[in-house]
């Protein structure tokens, strides 16, 4: 065999790299895989539309005080003079009340709608951030360290995934409230705040396990790759191997999981608020409004449709955006 022989060199060049730069001749900088995915995402029309819708809701939530000031109303004023003796609003859509007023209380619908976007988004995003962070760290540790660490974390993942979410969520709220002195002793403000954090906790608690399992699996395959061995041979400390070598390779599953978790959490928050274990008065929230509005649907359909449209549009946009992100990260999809 002639392979190693120095004088049998086949087409040796001084700069082999410069011999075939054709692929990226125009770009002096290479593109990272994340960058490529982002570029693909920008070309995806559905993704751009959905991202705009999500951005719209984010802006509505951020500028809620400004928007309600623009209308000249706020969320807590009871316009009792515009309510008849049976509780029905006497006015529809007016210049003062852009979306009308609530039955019974007479509070402004528009103000409550724009403020209602806040808890949905904040809870969904915070729960996603917390759940993702826990899931990633747990998955990394379980996959990379292996042994008893893996066994304990894997057991925890199985345990969490086997818990019934709804039952647990419904049960947890009164438990936490009783720990804080019982719901009768709490001011409505305190109660609303506690509910807010309990919701984030419950959603994150149930959200991390699925991601952790995915990350663990990815790490199990990645850690056998030779670049991880090369890092070890160089003497790179374990935490750097985890966060500098492995984590960048996990961007795709993390981003995909997070983008699919956000709409799920928006729905879950609304669902729990509808069931009465989510947010409570005086915090305006769409899920809670839906629960109340079902009683008035025949007389005042707009009251129900406002939060329903809000949630549907937001969740649909987030879910489609999540799908588009997953496609963008998957090199096998062609559009």
């Amino acid at each position: 065999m002639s392979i190693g022989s120095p004088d049998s060199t086949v087409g040796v060049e001084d700069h082999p790299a410069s011999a075939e730069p054709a692929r990226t001749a125009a770009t002096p900088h290479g593109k990272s895989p994340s960058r490529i995915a982002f570029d693909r995402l920008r070309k995806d029309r559905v993704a751009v539309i959905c991202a705009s819708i999500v951005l719209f809701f984010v802006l509505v939530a951020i500028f809620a005080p400004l928007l309600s000031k623009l209308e000249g109303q706020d969320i807590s004023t009871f316009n009792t003079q515009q309510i008849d003796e049976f509780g029905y609003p006497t006015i529809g859509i007016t210049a003062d009340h852009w979306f009308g007023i609530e039955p019974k209380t007479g509070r402004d619908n528009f103000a409550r709608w724009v403020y209602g976007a806040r808890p949905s988004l904040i809870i969904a995003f915070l729960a996603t951030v917390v759940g993702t962070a826990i899931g990633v760290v747990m998955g990394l540790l379980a996959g990379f360290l292996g042994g008893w660490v893996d066994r304990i974390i894997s057991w925890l993942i199985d345990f969490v995934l086997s818990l019934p979410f709804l039952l647990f969520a419904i049960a947890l709220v009164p438990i936490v409230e009783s720990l804080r002195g019982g719901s009768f002793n709490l001011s409505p403000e305190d109660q609303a705040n506690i509910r807010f954090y309990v919701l984030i906790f419950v959603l994150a608690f149930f959200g991390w396990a699925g991601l952790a399992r995915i990350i663990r699996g990815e790490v199990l395959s990645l850690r056998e790759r030779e670049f991880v061995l090369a890092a070890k041979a160089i003497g790179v400390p374990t935490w750097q191997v985890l966060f500098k070598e492995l984590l960048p390779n996990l961007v795709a599953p993390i981003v995909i999981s997070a983008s699919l978790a956000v709409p799920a959490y928006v729905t879950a928050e609304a669902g729990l608020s509808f069931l009465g274990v989510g947010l409570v008065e005086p915090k305006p929230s769409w899920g809670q409004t839906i629960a109340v509005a079902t009683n008035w649907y025949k007389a005042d359909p707009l009251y129900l449709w406002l939060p329903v449209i809000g949630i549907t549009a937001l969740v649909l946009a987030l879910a489609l955006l999540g799908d588009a992100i997953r496609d963008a990260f998957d090199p096998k999809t062609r559009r």
Partner: protein
Amino acid sequence: MSETKNDTPRDTLLQVRDLKMHFPIKEAAGLGRTKKVVQAVDGVSFELKAGASLGLVGESGCGKSTTGRMITRLLTPTSGEIVFKGTDIAQLKERELRPFRRQLQIVFQDPYSSLNPRQTVSNIISTPLRVHNLVKKGQELARVQELLERVGLNPEHHNRYPNEFSGGQRQRIGIARALAVEPEVIIADEPVSALDVSIQAQVMNLLEDLRKDLGIAFVFIAHDLGVVRHFCDEVAVMYLGKIVEQGSRDQIYNAPQHPYTQALLSAAPDLGTIRGVPPKERIRLVGDVPSPIDPPSGCRFRTRCWKAEDICATQEPLLEIKPQSTPGHTAACHFAEPKVDLIAETA
């Protein structure tokens, strides 16, 4: 390649003594669990002098890569010694190993999995510089470009990602990463077997240049006798976790003693056939490599050896210098005899 690379006596840099790697495996048997071990490497010894190169040859699963990974301490040996410059590093803890990480580097087989796809080339090569504080801040790039140039890549491509390079170029990046710490020994774990034949020669030439110019000693792991022949001063042939024959390049290639070495050499493709010379009788080995979980008694090669007799099953042959062989040439066989003219003149 000249026969005498360097006539000055060299110091022993690396000494491996009776290295063993036994991987425990658990098997469910009935109600309980039986513990078995895979004897991946079972008593390997060799020496490497400064600037020299040792070829470690054998078929898949014979433990050659495991040996390489133990020397770089990616694996902790079950027993045995790895003496590097007078220090036994076989059982050192990660923190104590740190200074040795700088001196023992490894180049991997698969250039597609040995580079982190999410890091730029400059990031990949500067990682060892940063970990060992080898250059001042701000001079990293200059050093990276110097290394890229050294391995024959365009230094302006430091900003690119590995996916923009071909297999041979990636392997050069892997070599540059190993060079970054200025090591004294590089374990080359089949560095060219994943490459196209035309690229193999270029990468081999690069390694050869590095050895000559920088005086780096190589442990060259390969399953390809042709590659090893042109690169290594000394060759050790492994079979099922043990070295069966060891000697200088000429001793192994021109007068192989062990039947396994003879079979390996005989299996190498012969260019003469293409030119019309009638092919030589090949030694055909029958059967598979026995399981390293339960290796054969006595000589491990006896199950496939045409010379095997009763003594091979009862008494394990030692790796020793045979009366008929030249000095420094050891073989582990009861019936060792040189067999010449096994390989035709290649190329």
